[in-house]
């Protein structure tokens, strides 16, 4: 048995905000051996990021962190260590790469200077490392400022910068969330190769179970600051012992998921328990909870089905666990109107002025969309898939009438303007106005006021499954999932003929994604709305859409039925997109390799 490089035992972290302390991590214990990749998964707010910050001694000081327990990296105790020790550890032992590589680099310094500053390395080593991360032209990259290179290149630079220090532990906090699928696959391969070569343990924080399953060695499932299950990735994915892991795994979707019916989701929290110290934190949402679950706190114990550990009193019963709800009935058969076109884009082109100026000082236009022809019939959902920069959002904004195309025409059938569901639901709600006021906003121009408006708002909240008591709440009092529902309620309070969704699930975790896809799927069928669903996630596109259109560099390269398009992609680009989707297939082939 190799000596563990990281050993955490009894780690608890309490943060206080506005005077009230909350325990974000409760009695976490685990170890990592050199070269091992451990994925931390869980819903947002489960404490994944806090573990990473605690390991670096970077918990936000303004929330007065209280850390107890022990964190040892290569034998050095970090809890309660003096700042000097922590600084040395951050330089040599623990490195981190973040979700947003652009903001992790100093925009005023060249890559070379930043790498030099972080590692005291000479130019040859810098070029060598940049080359090793797969950057084609190390000299040019080294002399560039961060805004001159792409997001994927930035992440590679950060990886080079971190791995150069030959750290014992690398914390990768959602390192690929901001990147395209094809780039994501390359970055993950790179990280895995480097970890093996340098014997660096990686703590991989992610909300994407598919990525975790295809990338990590071990899986650590966090729920509300507790480790509920830990074990080899293959074991946990095949036979989850904790009802929460099982629920998470059931809620994820990939290219093989059943798209004829709503996706399985995790049950929502039913009632809070008063005494958390003597109860299972998951009991309020658990479908196999017994009376003893709210009186005895389960500790990690050997899991019944695999070599890992699980914190559940009744883990033996997890496989028998009923689904969150009765098996969902299949979606009703399609009711796409054949002749009513809700949106027709004909030969649409758009270009934006770029920073470059020509000789006479005119900004040179850069073409973003060229000759796009796309039509969506009433009741039909078209998913627009492509990488960032392909022009997806521009196309959506043209369809919404927010910007005018340079050429071509946009035809919509309706007097009710199309509605938009945004990627970041929290920032799509005005922070100082109540949910009810914002949801009811669209009724005002029609002169609907007073009790009638109140009734309609309540109806809309009910339609999206939002507690009517939240009508007078401000967005800050809502969870991310509730904000997303409120945004959808605002969009459907007057049923639009065209609903435009701009990456509505890319910022959400597994269970929320599935819930949102189900909600949108149900609403569009019930209201007979045409829908344009912009996403970079081919799996989500396949679940929700009747047709998938693939956009590459401003041109539609393929357009077709989801199953056929994924099974037999015609364009090279589509083939690359399909291959880059992590999922059960990848993990199965990995398991086969191991066996």
């Amino acid at each position, binding site marked *: 048995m190799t000596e563990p490089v990281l050993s955490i035992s009894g780690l608890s972290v309490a943060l206080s905000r506005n*005077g009230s302390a909350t325990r974000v991590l409760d009695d976490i214990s685990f170890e990592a051996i050199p070269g091992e990749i451990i994925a931390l998964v869980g819903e947002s707010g489960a404490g994944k990021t806090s573990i990473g910050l605690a390991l670096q001694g970077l918990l936000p000081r303004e929330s007065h962190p209280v850390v107890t327990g022990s964190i040892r990296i290569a034998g050095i105790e970090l809890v309660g260590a003096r700042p000097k020790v922590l600084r040395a550890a951050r330089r040599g032992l623990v490195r981190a790469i973040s979700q947003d590589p652009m903001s992790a680099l100093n925009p005023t310094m060249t890559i070379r200077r930043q790498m030099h500053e972080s590692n005291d390395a000479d130019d040859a080593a810098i070029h060598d490392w940049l080359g090793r991360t797969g950057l084609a032209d190390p000299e040019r990259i080294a002399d560039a400022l961060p805004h001159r290179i792409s997001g994927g290149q930035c992440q590679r630079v950060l990886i080079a910068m971190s791995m150069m220090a030959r750290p014992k532990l690398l914390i990768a906090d959602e390192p690929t969330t901001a990147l395209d699928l094809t780039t994501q696959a390359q970055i993950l391969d790179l990280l895995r190769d480097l970890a093996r070569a340098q014997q660096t343990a990686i703590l991989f924080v992610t909300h994407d179970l598919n990525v975790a399953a295809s990338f990590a060695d071990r899986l650590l499932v966090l729920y509300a600051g507790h480790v509920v299950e830990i074990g080899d990735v293959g074991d946990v994915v095949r036979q989850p012992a904790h009802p929460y892991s099982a629920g998470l795994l059931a809620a994820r979707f990939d290219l093989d998921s059943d798209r004829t019916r709503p996706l399985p989701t995790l049950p929502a929290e039913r009632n809070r328990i008063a005494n958390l110290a003597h109860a299972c934190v998951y009991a309020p949402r658990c479908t196999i909870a017994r009376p003893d679950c709210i009186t005895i706190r389960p500790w990690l114990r050997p899991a019944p089905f695999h070599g890992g550990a699980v914190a559940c009193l009744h883990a033996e019963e997890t496989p028998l666990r009923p689904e969150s709800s009765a098996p969902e009935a299949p979606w009703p058969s399609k009711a796409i109107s054949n002749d009513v076109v809700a949106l027709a884009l004909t030969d649409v082109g758009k270009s934006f002025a770029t920073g470059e100026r020509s000789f006479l000082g005119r900004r040179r236009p850069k073409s973003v969309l060229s000759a796009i022809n796309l039509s969506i019939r009433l009741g039909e959902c078209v998913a627009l898939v492509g990488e960032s920069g392909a022009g997806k959002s521009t196309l959506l904004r043209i369809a919404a009438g927010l910007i005018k195309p340079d050429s071509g025409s946009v035809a919509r059938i309706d007097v009710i*303007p199309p509605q938009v569901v945004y990627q970041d639901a929290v920032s*799509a709600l*005005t922070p100082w106005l109540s949910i009810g006021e914002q949801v009811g*906003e*669209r009724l005002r121009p029609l002169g609907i006021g007073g009790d009638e408006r109140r009734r309609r708002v309540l109806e809309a909240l009910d339609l999206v499954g939002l507690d009517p008591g939240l009508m007078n709440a401000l967005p*800050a009092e809502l969870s991310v999932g509730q904000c997303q529902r409120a*945004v959808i309620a*605002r969009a459907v309070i007057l049923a639009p003929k065209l609903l435009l969704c701009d990456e509505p699930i890319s910022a959400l975790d597994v269970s929320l994604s599935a819930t949102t896809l189900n909600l949108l799927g149900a609403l569009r069928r019930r209201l007979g709305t045409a829908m344009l669903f912009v996403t970079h996630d081919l799996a989500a596109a396949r679940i929700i859409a009747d047709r998938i259109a693939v956009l590459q560099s401003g041109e539609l390269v393929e357009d077709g039925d989801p199953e056929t398009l994924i099974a037999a992609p015609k364009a090279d680009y589509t083939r690359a997109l399909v291959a880059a989707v992590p999922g059960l297939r990848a993990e199965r082939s990995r398991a086969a390799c191991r066996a």
Partner: protein
Amino acid sequence: MSRLKTRAGWQSFFRRAGWLESIGIAGVLVVTLVALVAPWIAPFDPDVRVAGAYLPPSAAHWFGTDEIGRDFFSRIILGVQYTFLPGIGIVLVSLVVGAGLGLIAGAVGGTLDHIIERTVDLFIVLPAMLIALATVASLGPGLFNTMIAIVIFWWPVYARICRDEIRRLNALPHVEAARVSGVRGPRLLLRYLLPGAVPALLVTATHDITGVIMTLSAMSFLGLGQPAPAPELGAMTARAMESLTVYWWLPILPAAVIFLICLLANLAGDGIRMALRGA
């Protein structure tokens, strides 16, 4: 904003502001109260002789008496009213004018934005004190004219801040979402845009109370404030400067009160800034 109105809201507001800054906010409220009720809480009539001239501070006359035997404490209490209320007034009028124009410039954009912005530029580059002097010289001395003079060079700052905040907000998803929901016109401006600019404006305005009071005092010092018997703090300091070595309380105490008000206003500004940042 309505968040601050709840009970727990106020508590967390002061906790975020910090204790020293909370004292500043409370202090500004107390000073405002004193200024409002000054004539009723002053122990003596500030305009008549009540004792011998040049009495040093004592139990009977806390701040002593001035050159003709008026109770100096009463005069300073009145002075708070004569100095602080015009200060607040100037800031408020500048805020309304500046924020109004800034709101329109930022939200409408285009040519109108250009015209308003260049006007703001024009007022910002004018030499402030000179304009104030010229205004008072042409309108004649007096409180109201002094206030007009200061407002003339004070509003552009708020217009600039408000306009930039509105431009920033205009690009945020929630404002775009509101537009998609069909919100336009005054409702968009007043419900969706203006509240977002309030924190920045409020913080600047609280800090500016100091600047305005200093300017008012400086103008009184130059003899452009209110006519002689009015107990304006800056003027009182100015007139008593020559007796600093003999009757120290006459210049020092009004200056100290100006200092205290400015300090409290600055602390209050910091507190509001910190509390709103955390909100």
